[in-house]
């Protein structure tokens, strides 16, 4: 797609907005519809969009496949790790209350961290699946 100037310029304008919206959905998840899953899919969609417009090789330079592969377990690790912190602080597993002085705030921080883990895993998985299938048959 060497000649599609409109595509390329349009994509460059859209990409930061997509990421910004993904982050908005991520952090607004506490108060309204949203959360890690949706935000993860959106940020992965950004990478996929980039790969479609600019080619797989360019996209893999920006977002290496190995990074996607690491992100998948890393997110699960964040989720399980936050739970373990609660356990280390003397409460049951997955109890986020001791994360802050006020139990309600502790729960909020816990959920924020867990949602971040979900974001990491979901976006990593989506991109990894996309790379896997794009890379096939070449």
């Amino acid at each position, binding site marked *: 797609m060497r000649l599609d100037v409109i595509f390329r310029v349009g994509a460059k304008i859209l990409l930061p907005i997509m990421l910004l919206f993904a982050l908005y959905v991520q952090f607004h998840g506490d108060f309204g519809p949203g959360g890690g*899953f949706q935000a993860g899919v959106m940020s992965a969609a950004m990478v996929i969009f980039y790969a479609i417009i600019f080619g797989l090789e360019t996209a893999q330079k920006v977002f290496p496949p190995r990074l996607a592969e690491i992100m998948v377990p890393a997110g699960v690790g964040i989720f399980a790790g936050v739970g373990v912190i609660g356990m280390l602080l003397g409460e049951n597993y997955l109890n986020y209350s001791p994360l802050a002085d006020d139990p309600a705030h502790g729960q909020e921080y816990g959920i924020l961290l867990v949602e971040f883990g979900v974001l990491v895993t979901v976006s990593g998985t989506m991109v990894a*699946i996309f790379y*896997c*299938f794009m890379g*096939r048959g070449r």
Partner: protein
Amino acid sequence: MDLLYQIVAHYNHWITIFLMVSGLYIVVSRGNMVKKLVGLGLFQTSVYLLYLTPGKILGGTPPVLSPDFSVYSNPLPHVLILTAIVVGVATLALGLALVVRINEEFGTIEEDEIFAGDEDE
């Protein structure tokens, strides 16, 4: 009249049953592996409805505490089904990945062709 009311009042269950049975039928009757997965997806979707529809309480508001309301819809089914959807997506993704690999190895995704080819070995 009573019977008719019974049938109409539970229309959500009829939809569920229809989806469930048609999904299972596709899984059993189709030899194409992708179509089988489509049927499996339909079958799983019917379960989402089975859970979600009784969760809505007539006159209930979204379950956010507020002094103005006293009747809330049940949020738990939604949480459960969110989990089930994620599980379903994972299953579907794994299934499709297997189909891609099967296509690479056998050159077809029709079950009867694969089994017919296998006999020769």
